[in-house]
């Protein structure tokens, strides 16, 4: 898997490079600001870009802006955004073009290299990888929604795992239930949320998120 990294702190840039390279990825470029990220993506067409939200010169949301710009120029470029904090606004903005291939993880997740690289691969394959924190913010922010409150706690758990980009099999494994039980939960969720069922994993997530942030 060919990766472009955008991270302004050399300490983390080098760490990420080492982590990805020792897990069978090739870091084709490691840049430190937004404009060079857009350039690197145009030049290398990587399988995934790993981007820090806060980049120079403004140290605000440069990373998100640069990622959006890059996806405008090279549509469908998978982007995995890393951040010290989660902000549901950024997740919604990244997901809003509906092209998939979006991840948004807390930097904490790099503590588990296998899991992290797995998330990067899911994003590269056009799926989603939203941090559980992001998902619970997205869900929590709509606590007043009556349709959402119809979900049972177990269905809510399943919805969170869907948003994280898990497959049905992974969800079954995580919740220690059978495959068919997961399918039943999912169809219940779609029914309760008035969503037509669809086949691709990331489409389900996008539908859910579009609904949640709409």
């Amino acid at each position, binding site marked *: 898997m060919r990766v472009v990294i955008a991270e302004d*702190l050399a*300490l*983390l840039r080098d*760490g*990420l490079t*080492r*982590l990805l390279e*020792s*897990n069978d990825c090739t870091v084709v470029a490691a840049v430190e600001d937004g404009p060079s990220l857009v350039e690197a993506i145009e030049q290398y067409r990587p399988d995934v870009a790993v981007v820090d939200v*806060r980049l120079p010169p403004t*140290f605000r949301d440069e990373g998100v802006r640069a990622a959006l710009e890059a996806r405008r120029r090279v549509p469908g470029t998978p982007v995995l955004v890393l951040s*010290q904090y989660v902000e549901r606004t950024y997740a919604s903005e990244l997901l809003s073009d509906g092209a998939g291939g979006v991840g948004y993880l807390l*930097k*904490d997740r*790099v*503590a*588990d*290299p*296998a899991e*992290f690289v797995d998330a990067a691969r899911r994003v590269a394959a056009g799926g989603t990888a939203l941090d559980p924190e992001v998902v619970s913010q997205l869900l929590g922010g709509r606590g007043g929604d009556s349709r959402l409150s119809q979900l049972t706690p177990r269905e809510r758990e399943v919805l969170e795992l869907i948003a994280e980009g898990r497959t049905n099999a992974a969800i079954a494994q995580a919740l220690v239930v059978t495959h068919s039980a997961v399918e039943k939960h999912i169809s219940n969720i779609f029914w309760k949320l008035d969503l037509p069922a669809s086949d691709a994993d990331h489409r389900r997530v996008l539908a859910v998120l579009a609904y949640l942030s709409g």
Partner: protein
Amino acid sequence: MTTLRHWLGRLGKDSLYLVTGLPMGILTFTVAVTGWSTGLGLLITLIGFPVLLVTALALRGLSHVERGRAQLVVDAPLVARYKEPAKPGVWERFKSILSDAQNWRDLGWSLLLLPIGIAGFTIAVTAIATVLGLIFAPAWTWALWASHDPVDLGLFHVHDIWTSLIATAIGIAAAPLGLALVRGSAAASGALAQALLAPRTEQLTERVEVLQATRAGAVDAAAAELDRIERDLHDGAQARLVSIAMDLGLAQQKLDSDPEQARQLLAEAREGASAALVELRDLARGIRPALLAERGLGEAVRAFAARSPVPASVTTELGEEPVPEAVESAAYFVVAEALTNVAKHAGAQRATVSLVRRGDSLEVLVVDDGHGGANADGAGLKGLRARVEALDGTLGIASPAGGPTMLRVELPCGS
């Protein structure tokens, strides 16, 4: 002796104020009455407008002179504020003058000053002349003793040395009365001047404006400080911890396949943890130095100066009375920022720091022997100024090209 000198000085100022009141009164009355009657009379021909305008501006100038004159008898500074015209142009200026209450108060004082000046002048001259005339009676009445019309004092005639000495005694006895009359008239006139020319509300308004500005500055400074702390955390300790987590995760992954690399990653993680601790400690020190909380201002400043790259000597005279915590903090950061600037920009060989408690305020002085030319509008000094002004303190810097640079801060310690 000092009280006598004090009273004579007081008497001098009072009588000067009362005596000059008459010519000033004649002047202001003449300008006011002539200007306004001419202006109003000519209003129908439109020439009246400029006449009124000029009259108002002249009275404004005279009122300014009057404010200065009132300082002879009033201790507080006399401050007045006038409305500024919202838009340029003669008509706008005219409107702003007509609608300005202070302008009408000025006019009132210009008219009142004539009767007040006449009364004050009469009282001062009569009281002083009578008292002096009586006291020094032996010196001048002798010329009239032999005449048909000796000096008539109402109760008796002064016609020889003994009666003149009685007059002296009466003069000495009446002196306090004369003094009191002069003092009373001057004080009353001064108070009226103050009430009309510099109403107390104006001073309060000015104070409120100063407070608003300094509070905004303090809020900005606090926000900038929080920003800095957040940035320091984000780029410092938080990044370190992420990197440590990454190293540990990788090490765990490599434990079986590549134990040598795992060992190295663990060593790096440990170093990272030490660095994170140092960064957190520095950050905490930047918020409130531990020594300041534990040992007070003097020790904390001494410790900071000892770490300064430019040798700095510290003298403190803080006295017994405790300094408020906010003042301590501000004083500490003034010294810290000043010494940091000295090390960074001044090219100095050495610096001196002094902290002196003077009555109700704390004076902080930082002097270096560098090449001067410090920028008083730089970000660092601006932040310090905001911090100092938030506590009602003042900050001054003198930094001529070629040096030396002197930073002086005064912080009130009163409750």
